[in-house]
C-alpha cells in the first residue's frame, strides 16, 4: 500500500493540446467513417433490393393488366344444342360473333384467335348457368389471347418486318378494328390472383400456387417453430453440457449447410417412400421445408437464449422459480426478438426455396387450387420456375409479376412476426 506512491499517478491530460486534438479528430473521423460506411452498406443492400424490385416491376407491371374485348354473343341454335350444352360448338359461335364484329374479316379462325382460348368456356358456363339465355344476346367481356395482349400493351413492335413478328399485318388490322370500336379495355388482371395455372398466359393465375405456398408454409411453421424452439431450449438450457451436446450442436449447425436438394432427397425417401404420401402435396412440401428451416430456427433461438444475461436467470431462480419457469417466463420472452428473426428468415427462405420442392413433385401443372393441404398443387417458387421456362411471351411479365406477388406474400407473412419482434424488443 505504501508502494503506491512510488508509481507515477495518471498524469493529467491537456485536452486542448494539439496531440490530443489530432487524436480526437482522428477518432471522430473514424466514428464518422463507420457511420457512413454503415450507411453505405445499408445503401448497397437497399440498392440491390431496389434494383431487383424495379427490374421486376418494370417487366412485371404489365401483367397486372389484361386486355379484354367486350363482345355480344347470341346463343343461336345454329351453334348451340340445348340438349348438350356442355359440348356445343362455342368456338363456332365466337367465330361468328367476331366475324360480325370486324368489318371485312373473312377468316373466322383467325379473328376468333384474338380471344382467349378460355372465351368459349366463359360463353358455355354462362348458358349452362342459365339455360333460359338460349336465343338471347349477352354481353361478355373476355380476355384477349396473349399475342394480342402483347400488342395492346405495345410489347410487339409494329415496325419490325412482318416476317419477324408474332402477329401478321392482317391480324393487327383486325385488332385495330376492334380498338377503333372501343370494345377493347385493359382492366386489372384479376385472373392473375384468382385463377389457378393455365397453359394460356391470359388465363394463368397464381391462386393454386398461393394456396399451395400458404399450406406448405403453414405446415412448415407449425412444425418448425415449436420443434425448433423446443429443441433449442432443451439443448441450450437443459441438456447436460458435455462433448455429446457440443457434438449435437455442431451437427445441427451443420444441417444448415446441407444443400436443399438433399433435404428433397430425404423427403423423397422418407415421406414419399416409407410413409407413402403423395407427390405434389403441400403438406409434404411443408414437412420438407420444415426440415430445412429447423436448423435456422434452432441456431437463432440458441443464440438468443445465450444472450440473455445471467442476472435475470438468477433473479428468477432466487425467488424459487423452476428451471422451466425461468425459461418460459423470463428467458424466452427476452430471447423472442432473436427467435423471431430466425423464424422470419427461415420462413422467408422456405418460401423462396425451389430445389427440394422439385424433387417431391411440386413443380406440377395443376389447374385447380388445392382445397386442403393434401391436394396436389404447386407453390409460388415452383410456379415461377415453370412460368420462367414457358415459351409464351406473356409469361415473361407474369413471371416477374409472380415474383412480386411472392414478395408481397413474404412481406405480409413477416409483418406479424416483425410486429411481435418490435414489441418484444427491449434494451435493458
Amino acid at each position, binding site marked *: 500500500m505504501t508502494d503506491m506512491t512510488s508509481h507515477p499517478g495518471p498524469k493529467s491530460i491537456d485536452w486542448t493540446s494539439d496531440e490530443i486534438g489530432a487524436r480526437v479528430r482522428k477518432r471522430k473521423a473514424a466514428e464518422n467513417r463507420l457511420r457512413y460506411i454503415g450507411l453505405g452498406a445499408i445503401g448497397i443492400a437497399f440498392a440491390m433490393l431496389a434494383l431487383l424490385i424495379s427490374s421486376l416491376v418494370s417487366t412485371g407491371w404489365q401483367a397486372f393488366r389484361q386486355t379484354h374485348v367486350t363482345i355480344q354473343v347470341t346463343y343461336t341454335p345454329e351453334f348451340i344444342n340445348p340438349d348438350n350444352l356442355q359440348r356445343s360448338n362455342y368456338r363456332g359461335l365466337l367465330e361468328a360473333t367476331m366475324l360480325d364484329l370486324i368489318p371485312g374479316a373473312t377468316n373466322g379462325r383467325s379473328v376468333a384467335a384474338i380471344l382467349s382460348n378460355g372465351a368459349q368456356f366463359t360463353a358455355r358456363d354462362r348458358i349452362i348457368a342459365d339455360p333460359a339465355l338460349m336465343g338471347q344476346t349477352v354481353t361478355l367481356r373476355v380476355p384477349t389471347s396473349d399475342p394480342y395482349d402483347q400488342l395492346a400493351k405495345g410489347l410487339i413492335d409494329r415496325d419490325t418486318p412482318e416476317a419477324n413478328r408474332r402477329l401478321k399485318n392482317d391480324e393487327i388490322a383486325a385488332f385495330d378494328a376492334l380498338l377503333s370500336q372501343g370494345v377493347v379495355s385493359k382492366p386489372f388482371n384479376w385472373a392473375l390472383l384468382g385463377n389457378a395455372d393455365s397453359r394460356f398466359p391470359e388465363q394463368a393465375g397464381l391462386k393454386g400456387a398461393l394456396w399451395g405456398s400458404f399450406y406448405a408454409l403453414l405446415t412448415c411453421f407449425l412444425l418448425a417453430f415449436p420443434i*425448433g424452439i423446443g429443441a433449442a431450449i432443451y439443448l441450450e438450457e437443459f441438456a447436460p453440457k458435455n462433448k455429446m451436446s457440443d457434438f449435437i450442436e455442431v451437427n445441427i449447425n451443420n444441417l444448415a449447410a446441407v444443400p436443399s436438394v*438433399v433435404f428433397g432427397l430425404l423427403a423423397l425417401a422418407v415421406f414419399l417412400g416409407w410413409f407413402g404420401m403423395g407427390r405434389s402435396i403441400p403438406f409434404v412440401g411443408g414437412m420438407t421445408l420444415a426440415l430445412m428451416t429447423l436448423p435456422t430456427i434452432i441456431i437463432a433461438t440458441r443464440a438468443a437464449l445465450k444472450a440473455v*444475461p445471467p442476472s435475470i436467470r438468477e433473479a428468477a431462480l432466487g425467488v424459487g422459480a423452476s428451471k422451466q419457469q425461468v425459461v418460459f417466463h423470463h428467458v424466452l420472452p427476452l430471447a423472442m426478438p432473436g427467435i423471431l*428473426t430466425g423464424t422470419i428468415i427461415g420462413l422467408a427462405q422456405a418460401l423462396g426455396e425451389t430445389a427440394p420442392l422439385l424433387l417431391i413433385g411440386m413443380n406440377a401443372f395443376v389447374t385447380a387450387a388445392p382445397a386442403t393441404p393434401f391436394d396436389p398443387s404447386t407453390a409460388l417458387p415452383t410456379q415461377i420456375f415453370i412460368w420462367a421456362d414457358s415459351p409464351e411471351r406473356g409469361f415473361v411479365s407474369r413471371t416477374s409479376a409472380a415474383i412480386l406477388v411472392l414478395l408481397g406474400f*413474404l412481406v405480409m407473412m413477416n409483418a406479424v412476426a416483425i410486429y411481435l419482434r418490435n414489441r418484444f424488443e427491449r434494451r435493458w
Partner: protein
Amino acid sequence: MTLIAFLLLFAAAILGYVLNRSAARSLRAGGAQLHSLSTFHGGFAALLVLVPTFLFIILWLLFHASVLDRLTMGGLPAGTLDGLDSGATQLILAEIKSIAGGRIFGSPEPWKIEAAERLAGYRAMSANLMLGLTALLALGLLVIARRTVSPEFRARQRAEGIIKGLMIFCSSVAIFTTIGIIASLVFETVRFFQMVPWHEFLFGTTWEPQMPIRADQIAAEGAFGWLPVFLGTLVITVVALFFAVPIGLLSAIYLNEFASPRFRKFAKPVLEVLAGVPTVVYGFFAVLTIAPALRTFGEMTGLPIAPNTAMAAGLVMGVMLIPFISSFADDALSAVPRALRDGALALGATRAETVLNVLFPAAIPGIVGGVLLAVSRAIGETMIVVMAAGLMAKMTINPLDSVTTVTVQIVTLLIGDTSFDSPKTLAAFALGFMLFIVTLGINVLALRIVHKYREIYD
C-alpha cells in the same frame, strides 16, 4: 372424421385441465397444503391426455389405410390373386378403391364390387373405431389424471417432466434428421468408393462425371476428382462472404448504433426481404444483370472475364445472405445490457469504439451464429449457382473464371437420368458427404472460437 377426433382430443385436454384444477382448488380450499399449484395439476392432466392421444391418432392415421388395404385384399375370393405380381395386385386394389369411392367405369367383375363394398364398410368402421378408441383413451387418461390429484402429488415436476420429454422429442427430430442425412450420405458414399477408389476422388483434379449410365448412352468416360468442384464452391463462398459479411455487419452496426429507431424498424424488415427472394430470381439477376455488367467491365478494362463467372454468382449470393448477418448481428447487439454500453461511453469512447470494442465482443455468439448460417447457406445454395456459375469443373481460384460447385454437381447428377447403381449418381452422395465433412470442420472451428472468445456479461 379426423377433425372430429382432434376436436375430441382438445376438448378432453381442456376438460382434464379444468377438472384437475378445480379438484386441486377445492382441496386447497379445504385447507390442504398442496405441493403444486392447481394450474399445474390442470396442466398435468391436459398434457397427460393430450400427448398419448395425439400420438395415437397420428399413428392411426399413418397406418390405418394399409391395414384396411390388407384386410380388403385378404378377403378376396381364394385364388383371385394367384400368380399376380405386386403391381397387378396394386392395380386391383386401386380399382376397388375407385369403385368404393363411387367412380365405376366399365363393368367390373362382381367380386371387385363386393370387395369395394367391403372396403367401404371397413372404412366407415375404421373411422368409428378411431373415434371410439380416441374417446376411450382420452377418457381413461382423464380418469387416471383425475386420480392423481392429491396434496402430495408433484404435479409441477410431472408436468415439467412431460414438457421436457416433448422438448427432448423436438431435439431428436433435429438429431434424427441429421442422422438420416448422414446415414444416407454415408451409405451411398461407401458404395461409391467401392466403384471409384477414394484417393482418386479425394486427390483427383479432373471432374467429368458424365459417364454413360446406360449401355446405349453416349458420353465420355467419367473422371471423379472432387478437388476442382470443391475449389469452385470455395471460390464462390468466399466471394459471397466477402460481400455479405462486411455489408451485413456494418448494416447491423449502423442500425443498432447510429440509425434512428424509426429507420431501424423500417430497414431491418426490408433487408429481410432479401432472404426471401426466390433463389431462381437471384439466378436470373446474376445472369442477366450482374454478369453482363461484369463482362462490360471486363471489356473496358481488358480483364479476361468469363461469361459465367464465379464473381457474378458469388456477389448475388452475397446479396441474399446480407439479412442473415445483419439481422442476427443486430439482435445480438441489442441484447447486450445497457450498463455495458454506458460503461464504455462514460469512458469517453465514441459510439464506434463502444460498439466495436465492447458490444461486439459481447455479442459474438449471436453474430457468429448468423455468420455461420450465412456460410452454410452459401455452401449449400444451389439454384443461383446452377444458373449463374456454369457446370465446368476447373482447377482455378480465379473468381473471374467460370467454376462449378458441389451443389450444382449434386443437382445435375441427381436430376434427370439417374440410376442408383452408377458411380455417376453415387458421386453426388460422395460430394454431399464431403460437403458435410467440410462444413462440420468449419462448425467445429467456429464453436471453438466462440467458446474461446465468448464474453459472458453481467
